[in-house]
C-alpha cells in the first residue's frame, strides 16, 4: 500500500469514528436510574417494590440541618431556605415547622368544616358554640390574644388551627423562633421531599445543586452550615466518590499503559494506532446501544469501557508478531483464526447478560459484544495496512528466549489442576458462610458516621423509616382513602402500645368524599346557626354582629362539593396528599409511611386484615429480588459457558486442545471465587461481571499459548504479546483494586487476580506439548 493510500485510509477511519462519535454524542441520552440494574418485575408484587424503592416519598425525603453559633440566624435561614426551595420547583414538599395557618389558600378556607374531624363528635349548636366562645374570651385575656384575635370573627371555633395542628407530625421536634430545632436547640431542622426519585442520581445531583445555591442565597450568617441526609443525598455522595476515584485511578492507569506500550514497541505511531480499534469499539458500542435502547445508563458506560479494554489486546497481538520481512497483512492472516476464536468466544460469554432480564446488563451486553466485534474486525482488516514496517522483532530478544526456555522446562502438573478443583469445590460447598451478597447497598456503602447522623436526624424529626412502608391499592382514590381511614385506628393502637412511633396516611389530609359529605350534612342551615350563635353570644362580652364572616363561611361550606384529589392542584394540599396518594396507570396507590418500626410482625398483621394492603419491607424485598435475579443470571452464564466451549471446539476441532485452552480459565474462575470467599468477600453482580471479563482474558492467553507453534521465534513473539497484554491489564485492575470503594475494589481484585492466575495456569497447562501432538495439527 502506498504512503498516500495509507494516509487516506487512516484519515477515512478517523473521520468515520469521529462522525459516528459526534452523532452518538448528540443523540445519546445518558440515564442514571439505578433501577435499570434491577430485574424487570415479573409479578405485581415485584412491580410494586420497584416502584416504591425509587418513587416513595420516603426515598425522596431529604433531612436538612442548619447549624451555627447563633440559633436565631439558623432559624431565619431555615425560613428563607424553605421559601426558596418551595419556589425552586425541585421539591414537592418543604417543612420546617412553621405552621401553615396562612399557607392555606383562601379559596379552600371554607373546606375546613369538611376536612376537620371536630364536627364528627359535636354539632355547631348553641351548647358547643357557648363553650367555644367562653374559651375564646379567655384566649383574648391571655398572651395568645394578639395571635388569635384576627381569626376569631371568621373562625370562632378555631377549626383552622385544629386542622393545621392535626397536619403536623404526631411527634414533632421542638419549635424555637417558630421553626423546628433539634433537642439541643442548636440546629434548625427541615424536611424536604424532592421531585426527583431517590434512585435517580442525576436528578438528585441537580436537586443538591439547587439546595446549595438556595442555602448560599438565604444564609443570614457566614458561620452557618447546611447538612443534608437521606437516600437522595447519599446517592449523590456515593456517585461522586465513585466517579472521582474511578477517574483518578483511570488517569493513572492510562499513564501506566502508555509507558508500558512505549517500552514494549518503542514507537509512537504504534502507540497511537493501537488505540484506534479501542476507540472504534467504544463509539460503535455506544451507537448500537443508542439504536436499540434509546438511552444508555451511566453504569453501562463506565463498566462497558472497562470490559472492552480487552480490545486493547488485539492490536498488541498483531504488533508483537510483527517482524522484518513479513508484511503486517500476512502476519495478521496467520493470527486471525486464534484472534477470531478469542473474540467470538468472549462475545458468546457476554451474551449471558443479554438474557439476564436486567435492562442495564442487556445494554452492557450489546455494548461489549458490538465493541469487541468491531475492535477484532478493525484489527484484522484495517490496522494491518497502516502499521509501519517494523525494524524490531520481539523474537530477537535474548531475555524472551531465556524466559521461553525456562518455561519449556516447567512441569506440567495436571494433578495440581485436578487437586485444586477438588479443593476449591469442597471448600465452597462446606463453608457455612453465604457465598453471595444480596444487599445492593453493601457495594457502595455509605460511611457509618453519615448513617449514624441520618438515624439521629430521623429520630429528631420523627421522619419515616426508609425500610418499611404500607401500600394500599385499589381501583379508585375513594376506596384507597377509605382503606387508609380504616387502618388509622389500628395503627394508632400500635403507637399506643409502643410498637410503632408514628405513621402518616393520606386520609389524614384528605378524608373520603363520604366522610366529607357526612360532615357537610351535619352543618346547620343559616337560620338555625344564627339562632344558636345568638343564644351562645348572650352571656359573653363579645359585641353583637362580629361573627358574620363565620356564618358566611359555614353557609359556603354547606354548598361545597366534597374535595377530591383532582381539586387540589396548586394548593398546599396537592403536595401533601400527592406524595401519599398516587394515580398509576389504571389504579390508585395509597402509601402509609411508618416511623420507628419496632414490631414488623404486628404491622404485617394489621396489613393482612385490610384487603389490598401490603406491608413492604424494602430491604428484604430488594434482597429477594437480587437473589432471584442472580439465579437467572447464573443459568444464563452456564448456558453461555457451554456455548463458549462449543465455539472453541469448532475452532480447534480437538478435544484435548479444547481441554487445554479452557482449563486455565475454568480453574481460574473457581480459584478466584474460593479466594474471595476465603477473604470474607461476598459475591455480587459486579463480581460476576468481573469474572466473565477475567475468563475472556484467560481464554485469549490460552488460545495464543496453545497456538504458539514449534517455531521458537514465533513462540517468543507470542510470549511477548501475552506478557504485554497481561501486564497492561494487570496494571489497570491492580490500581482499581486499591480503591476504597467496594464496587471498584471488587472488580479490580477479581480481574487482577484472574490475570495472574490465568497467565500462570496457561503457562503450566496450555503450552503446547512438544513433539508429535503439536506436529499433528
Amino acid at each position, binding site marked *: 500500500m502506498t504512503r498516500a493510500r495509507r494516509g487516506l485510509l487512516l484519515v477515512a477511519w478517523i473521520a468515520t469514528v469521529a462522525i459516528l462519535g459526534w452523532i452518538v454524542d448528540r443523540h445519546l441520552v445518558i440515564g442514571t436510574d439505578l433501577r435499570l440494574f434491577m430485574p424487570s418485575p415479573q409479578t405485581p408484587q415485584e412491580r410494586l417494590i420497584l416502584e416504591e424503592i425509587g418513587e416513595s416519598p420516603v426515598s425522596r425525603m431529604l433531612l436538612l440541618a442548619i447549624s451555627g453559633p447563633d440559633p436565631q440566624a439558623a432559624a431565619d435561614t431555615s425560613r428563607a431556605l424553605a421559601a426558596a426551595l418551595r419556589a425552586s420547583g425541585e421539591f414537592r414538599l418543604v417543612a420546617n415547622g412553621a405552621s401553615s395557618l396562612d399557607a392555606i389558600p383562601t379559596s379552600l378556607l371554607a373546606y375546613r368544616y369538611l376536612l376537620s374531624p371536630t364536627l364528627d363528635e359535636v354539632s355547631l349548636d348553641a351548647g358547643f358554640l357557648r363553650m367555644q366562645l367562653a*374559651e375564646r374570651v379567655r384566649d383574648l385575656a391571655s398572651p395568645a390574644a394578639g395571635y388569635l384575635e384576627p381569626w376569631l370573627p371568621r373562625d370562632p371555633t378555631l377549626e383552622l388551627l385544629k386542622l393545621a395542628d392535626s397536619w403536623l407530625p404526631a411527634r414533632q421536634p421542638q*419549635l424555637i423562633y417558630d421553626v423546628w430545632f433539634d433537642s439541643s436547640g442548636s440546629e434548625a431542622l427541615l424536611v424536604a421531599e424532592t421531585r426527583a426519585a431517590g434512585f435517580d442520581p442525576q436528578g438528585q445531583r441537580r436537586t443538591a445543586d439547587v439546595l446549595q445555591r438556595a442555602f448560599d442565597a438565604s444564609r443570614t450568617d457566614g458561620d452557618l452550615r447546611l447538612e443534608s441526609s437521606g437516600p437522595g443525598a447519599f446517592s449523590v455522595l456515593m456517585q461522586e466518590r465513585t466517579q472521582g476515584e474511578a477517574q483518578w485511578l483511570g488517569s493513572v492507569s492510562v499513564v501506566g499503559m502508555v509507558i508500558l506500550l512505549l517500552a514494549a514497541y518503542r514507537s509512537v505511531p504504534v502507540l497511537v494506532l493501537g488505540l484506534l480499534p479501542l476507540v472504534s469499539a467504544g463509539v460503535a458500542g455506544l451507537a448500537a446501544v443508542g439504536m436499540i435502547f434509546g438511552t444508555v445508563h451511566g453504569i453501562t458506560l463506565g463498566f462497558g469501557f472497562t470490559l472492552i479494554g480487552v480490545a486493547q489486546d488485539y492490536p498488541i497481538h498483531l504488533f508483537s508478531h510483527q517482524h522484518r520481512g513479513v508484511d503486517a497483512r500476512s502476519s495478521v492472516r496467520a493470527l486471525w483464526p486464534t484472534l477470531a476464536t478469542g473474540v467470538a468466544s468472549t462475545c458468546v460469554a457476554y451474551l449471558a447478560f443479554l438474557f439476564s432480564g436486567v435492562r442495564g446488563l442487556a445494554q452492557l451486553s450489546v455494548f461489549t459484544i458490538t465493541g469487541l466485534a468491531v475492535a477484532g474486525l478493525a484489527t484484522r482488516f484495517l490496522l494491518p495496512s497502516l502499521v509501519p514496517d517494523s525494524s524490531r522483532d520481539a523474537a530477537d530478544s535474548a531475555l524472551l528466549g531465556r524466559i521461553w526456555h525456562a518455561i519449556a522446562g516447567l512441569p506440567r502438573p495436571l494433578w495440581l489442576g485436578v487437586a485444586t478443583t477438588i479443593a476449591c469445590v469442597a471448600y465452597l460447598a462446606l463453608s457455612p458462610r453465604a457465598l453471595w451478597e444480596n444487599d445492593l447497598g453493601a457495594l457502595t456503602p455509605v460511611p457509618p458516621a453519615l448513617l449514624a447522623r441520618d438515624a439521629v436526624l430521623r429520630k429528631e424529626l420523627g421522619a419515616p423509616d426508609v425500610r418499611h412502608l404500607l401500600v394500599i391499592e385499589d381501583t379508585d382514590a375513594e376506596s384507597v382513602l377509605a382503606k387508609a381511614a380504616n387502618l388509622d385506628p389500628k395503627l394508632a393502637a400500635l403507637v399506643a402500645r409502643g410498637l410503632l412511633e408514628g405513621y402518616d396516611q393520606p386520609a389524614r389530609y384528605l378524608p373520603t368524599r363520604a366522610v366529607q359529605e357526612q360532615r357537610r350534612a351535619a352543618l346547620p342551615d343559616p337560620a338555625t346557626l344564627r339562632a344558636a350563635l345568638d343564644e351562645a353570644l348572650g352571656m359573653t362580652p363579645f359585641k353583637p354582629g362580629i361573627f358574620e364572616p363565620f356564618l358566611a363561611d359555614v353557609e359556603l361550606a354547606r354548598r361545597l362539593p366534597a374535595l377530591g384529589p383532582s381539586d387540589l392542584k396548586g394548593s398546599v394540599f396537592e403536595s401533601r396528599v400527592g406524595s401519599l396518594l398516587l394515580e398509576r396507570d389504571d389504579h390508585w396507590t395509597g402509601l402509609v409511611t411508618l416511623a420507628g418500626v419496632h414490631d414488623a410482625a404486628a404491622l404485617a398483621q394489621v396489613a393482612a386484615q385490610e384487603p389490598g394492603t401490603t406491608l413492604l419491607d424494602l430491604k428484604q424485598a430488594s434482597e429477594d429480588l437480587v437473589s432471584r435475579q442472580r439465579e437467572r443470571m447464573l443459568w444464563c452464564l452456564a448456558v453461555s459457558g457451554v456455548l463458549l466451549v462449543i465455539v472453541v471446539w469448532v475452532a480447534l476441532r480437538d478435544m484435548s486442545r479444547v481441554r487445554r485452552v479452557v482449563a486455565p480459565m475454568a480453574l481460574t474462575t473457581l480459584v478466584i471465587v474460593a479466594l474471595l470467599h476465603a477473604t470474607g468477600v461476598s459475591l455480587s453482580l459486579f463480581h460476576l461481571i468481573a469474572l466473565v471479563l477475567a475468563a475472556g482474558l484467560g481464554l485469549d492467553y490460552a488460545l495464543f499459548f496453545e497456538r504458539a507453534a514449534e517455531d521458537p521465534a514465533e513462540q517468543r513473539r507470542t510470549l511477548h504479546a501475552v506478557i504485554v497484554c497481561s501486564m497492561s491489564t494487570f496494571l489497570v485492575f491492580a490500581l482499581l483494586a486499591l480503591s476504597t470503594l467496594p464496587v471498584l475494589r471488587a472488580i479490580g481484585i477479581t480481574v487482577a487476580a484472574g490475570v495472574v492466575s490465568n497467565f500462570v495456569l496457561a503457562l503450566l497447562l496450555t503450552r503446547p506439548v512438544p513433539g508429535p501432538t503439536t506436529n499433528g495439527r
Partner: protein
Amino acid sequence: MIGLTLTAAPLQAADPDVDTLLARLPRPAPDSTCFVEIRYSSLLAEPLVVSGRLEHREDGSLVRRVEWPYQEVTVLQGESVSIERAGSKTRRFTLDRAPELRGMLAGFGAILQGDRQMLDQYFAVSAQGSDARWAITLTPRNDKLKRHLSRIVVDGTENRPKCFTLEEPDGDGSLMALGVAGSGDLPASLDRGVLHAWCTDGDGQ
C-alpha cells in the same frame, strides 16, 4: 437618643432621667408579684379583667398565673409560649407569632432588670413626670413591631413600677397593674381614662 430629645424636648429640664429611674428600681426584682390585667379588644363590648401572680423562675422563664376568674398558667421561656387552662388543650406557640408579646416581654424584662441596652435595642425611650411619679414611654423601633404595638407606657411611683400599658395600632390594648391583688383595689370603672388617671395617681388629670 433621638426619640428622647424629640418627644421630651419642651419639658426636657423638668423630665426625670431614664437611667436614674431605672437605677432606682430594686435589684434583684422580686421573684413574685401579684397583678391585675385589663384587656381591651374591638371584638368585645366590655374589657376583660383577670388577676393572678407573675413569677420569675431561676431558669429565666416568666410564669403568668391567672387565679381569677379562672385558673390559667402561661409559661414564657425563651422563644416559646405555652398556655395551660383547666379543661382545654395546652396551647403552644412561639413569639414570632405574637410580635406584640415579644415587644412587651422585652420592655417588661428590661425595665425590671434595669437593662438600658435591651430597651434601646427595641424602643425609643423617653421619661416624663417627676422622680416621685414618673412614666417611661417605649416606642417600637422596627417596622414589624410597630405594626402590632404603638407604644408601651410604664407608670411608677418612687422605686416601684405600677402599671404597664400596651397600646396597639388598631385601638386594642391592655393594662397590667402590678402589686395589686384584685380588681377590688382598682377604680370601679374600667374606662381607659379612669385607669390611666389611677396609674398616674391623679397627677395626669
